[in-house]
């Protein structure tokens, strides 16, 4: 009996250690591993270099292969350059349309400073893995009401769904129940961005117009349709465009400007 108890205690301690290791390993950032990579590289790479040199020396004539390699490399570079030029041509076309809306932008910037905002702290994040609501520390007595948009210094955060005297519940834009009408800053194409279950602060943009030109790195902002979010608030950038067989089904992933994992302070727009 005593032995059993001891064994079970050891079992629990081992489980705790394993849990800590799993948590640490699963949350490690890849850039944190680079020094390990460097260290391993220092050990392996000189030997590898020497071996390659030895191999080339033994086989002697390796210029034919290097030539082919060079040609392939050059071909690849030219292809890349070609696609880059094509892209910049398309971008120039977009710039034309952008020029037309520049005036509107100037007005919008003034409008952005005109927003009356109240700063607030995030006091609680969601407890569930399947939704992303949070609670902030201001409520009706500070003038906060339902459906007010919430932003941070980087971009759009979400909107208020319920409010008490001193706290308010915010539904973030990465919540699965959230849909926002948004627009690509340059080409003014309207699409719908939904929250996803992924844990990396990303949105899925669907209903992209078939004639729309959309590139990775394009900036996305709110369109002003829908009645909750005002026009022109920055949402994020296009991370990936996924083309499907049917062009009406294609979608894009938007990386939000706000890092929701580290979000601590927000602003509530009250007017």
């Amino acid at each position, binding site marked *: 009996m005593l032995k059993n108890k001891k064994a079970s205690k050891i079992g629990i301690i081992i*489980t705790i250690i394993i849990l800590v290791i799993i948590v640490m390993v699963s*949350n490690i950032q890849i850039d944190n591993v680079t020094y390990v990579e460097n260290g391993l590289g220092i050990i392996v790479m000189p030997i590898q270099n020497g071996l390659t040199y030895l191999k080339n020396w033994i086989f002697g004539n390796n210029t034919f292969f290097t030539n082919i390699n060079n040609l392939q490399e050059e071909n690849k570079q030219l292809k890349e350059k070609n696609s880059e030029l094509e892209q910049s041509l398309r971008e120039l076309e977009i710039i034309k349309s952008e020029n037309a809306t520049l005036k509107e932008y100037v007005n919008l910037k003034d409008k952005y400073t005109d927003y009356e905002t109240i700063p607030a702290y995030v006091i609680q994040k969601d407890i569930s893995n399947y939704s992303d609501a949070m609670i902030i520390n201001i409520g009706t007595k500070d003038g906060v009401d339902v459906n007010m948009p919430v932003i941070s210094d980087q971009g759009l955060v979400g909107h208020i*769904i319920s409010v008490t005297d001193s706290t308010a519940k915010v539904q973030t834009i990465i919540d699965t*129940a959230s849909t926002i009408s948004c627009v690509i800053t340059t080409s003014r194409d309207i699409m719908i961005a939904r929250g996803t279950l992924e*844990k990396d602060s990303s949105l899925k943009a669907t209903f992209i117009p078939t004639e729309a030109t959309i590139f990775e790195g394009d900036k996305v902002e709110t369109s002003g349709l829908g009645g909750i979010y005002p026009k022109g608030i920055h949402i994020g950038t296009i991370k990936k465009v996924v083309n499907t067989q049917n062009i009406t089904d294609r979608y894009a992933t938007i990386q939000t400007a706000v890092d929701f*994992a580290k979000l601590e302070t927000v602003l509530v727009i009250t007017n």
Partner: protein
Amino acid sequence: MKKAITIIVLIISFLILYFLQVNFFSWFTIAGIKPNLFIIFVLFISLFAGMKIGISFGILIGLFLDIIIGKSIGASAIMFGVIGLIGGYFDKNFSKESRLTIMLMVIGSTCIFEIGNYLLQIIQLSIYIEILPFIRTLLIETLYNAILTIILYPIMQKLGYKIEDTFKEQKILTRYF
């Protein structure tokens, strides 16, 4: 009297679990995924204190969480009630002596709770269905809950039999004789 004290103890332990879940486990995650301590808690109450108390605790905890942080009211309340019901069923059919059975019970109820909750949310909030990310999240969460059960098992058993004594004294006699 004894029952009242036990219920107060359970409420206090719920609050402790709530703050643990909100503060500690929102940071101590496996690949960004949190465990769900409340499922283990409701299952534990239902196993040791009986199905009725399990269901009522489940519904109250669900309502509390829905009101505090949920987007709609009802989904978690219903599902925690269901977990209470399942706990009662497990209690009738399986032994609580073994760590493995308790772990399997936790795994089963985590899956049932999250799938049911997700389905109810799809109906209530008309959210976009994502099957693969959901399964991935569910698997990691279930694994996390199972690991936590191994750690919490001794406390659960010690506290559990005390609770069982106060709530099910007569029943134990009738069951074995």
